[in-house]
């Protein structure tokens, strides 16, 4: 018997009864009874119980709906492909972004019509590096502004949104020009976002050098990164946009190929311009 041998008339019983006698379900909460009980009246009301159950079922229903619709707008499975990376790939790709001059084979390998995951092919685009580069760039921009005493939390938001908007504008412009030139390419929108996002790495390096070594450091490293991004973009896009013959280096006459070549050069040239535009105000 778990009952306590205490006198029921004992006023201390209110607290002792719960913890004495080895009562395993610990009623110490009862000691707080007077505090919680007025609130409990709400929970004990059957209507509010019903409301709570209904509310939780609404929440789960809403969540299902959101998952379903989210998958329609943002294809989660396709996105997963771009994040299937590992450390070795990221290391090599970063090296490639900074020094693309020695790399020979820029072809993306396929496996029965589907591109191989970025883990296994260094030429495949991924979204991890652009995403991390973007966030790092924002944080370093905040740091740079902080050292110049121009920092406030709103500035971070302004930097982030302006960089994002420029990215969207660039991707839309490239899509539009690809459509106008009627290029048959397998470049998806996400691929373009990935390729346009690679410049954030160069921007980050430039701003960091500017923080550490002043304006000269900024200009030198930005120049180097601009050149390497230019070469990288040309070599990557060439294979995707130009026809096969032209991509192999053979000279192919024809207005169409020339147009495509100009397009590739224009895309590549836009990268350094954006890199300078988005970073020069950060370094004084």
């Amino acid at each position, binding site marked *: 018997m778990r*009952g306590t041998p205490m006198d029921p008339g004992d006023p201390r019983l209110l607290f002792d009864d719960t913890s004495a006698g080895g009562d*395993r379900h*610990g009623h110490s*909460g*009862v000691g707080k009874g007077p505090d919680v009980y007025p609130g409990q*009246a709400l*929970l004990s009301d059957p209507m509010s119980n019903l409301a709570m159950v209904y509310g939780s079922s609404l929440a789960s229903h809403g969540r299902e709906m959101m998952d379903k619709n989210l998958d329609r707008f943002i294809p989660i499975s396709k996105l997963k492909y771009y994040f299937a990376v590992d*450390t070795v790939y990221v290391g090599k790709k970063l090296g490639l972004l900074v020094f693309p001059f020695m790399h020979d084979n820029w072809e993306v390998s396929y496996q029965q019509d589907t591109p191989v995951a970025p883990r296994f092919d260094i030429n495949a685009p991924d979204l991890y590096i652009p995403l991390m580069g973007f966030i790092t760039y924002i944080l370093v921009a905040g740091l740079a502004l902080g050292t110049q005493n121009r920092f406030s939390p709103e500035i971070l938001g302004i930097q982030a949104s302006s960089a994002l908007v420029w990215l969207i504008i660039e991707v839309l412009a490239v899509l539009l020009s690809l459509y106008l030139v009627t290029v048959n390419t397998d470049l998806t929108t996400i691929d373009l976002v990935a390729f346009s996002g690679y410049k954030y790495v160069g921007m980050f390096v430039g701003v960091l050098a500017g923080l550490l070594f002043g304006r000269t450091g900024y200009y030198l490293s930005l120049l180097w990164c601009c050149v390497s991004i230019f070469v990288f973009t040309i070599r990557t896009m060439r294979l995707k946009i130009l026809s096969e013959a032209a991509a192999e280096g053979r000279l192919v006459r024809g207005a169409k190929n020339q147009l495509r070549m100009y397009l590739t050069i224009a895309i590549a040239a836009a990268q350094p311009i954006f890199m300078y535009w988005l970073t020069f105000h950060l370094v004084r």
Partner: protein
Amino acid sequence: MTLTVTELLAMSGFDKLDADFYQSSFSVDDQNQGGGGYSNTDVQYSNPYGQYDYSQPMGYSAAPGIMQPQQPYTGQIFQPTPAFTPASTQSMYSSSFEDEPPLLEELGINFDHIWQKTLTVLHPLKAADGSIMNETDLAGPMVFCLAFGATLLFTGKIQFGYVYGISAIGCLGMYCLLNLMSMTGVSFGCVASVLGYCLLPMIILSSFGVLFSLQGMLGIILTAAIIGWCSFSASKIIISALAMDGQQLLVAYPCALLYGVFALISVF
């Protein structure tokens, strides 16, 4: 003959309660239903609870023994522990030392696991056991966040809001990233739990900041070391829990960014 709470619960076939809520309902009107329906929802509160009359100790002592139909029931309906809401797990830390351990088991606060996880964080070079993260335990992280805010308070920065806001956004970002990067998905609670536990070294950093200013060379080195420690242990736990191979540095980098923001708050 008074029946205690436990005996009534046993009568109703209730074995183990591992919920955050501890609920037991006693319905003097329906004794068979009295123990039934132990679940996390509040549906069982449909039992009407009359006024609880504290002025009658007699009524209280009789409440566990509700098998006394001859007593008037205006004040006899006993609702023992409605205060055990997740929000009050904080208070459980103070009262838990007075209560017996099985209470904590029922609440899901497993001290052994909490201690194990803390040790895993504190020994970054020791291999982690992936299964300890299976349960979502937000009690520990909450304590760590509060401790971090408290140590910041000692330096005069009242920035609880920033701490919570940044941890929320950071957890959300890590949740999206990990879901995209891993083969199996993760739940948000698991991510929040891991990131919260690995905030522990940050508390050490901010307590150093109380003693001396962190803006010198020593402070910068200490900050960098602590950020590395936090993100390394967080990534170690995550990749062992999600079985991601060759991606430890990739997971460590976003964690380092997140903890870097926390360090920025402590230093500046």
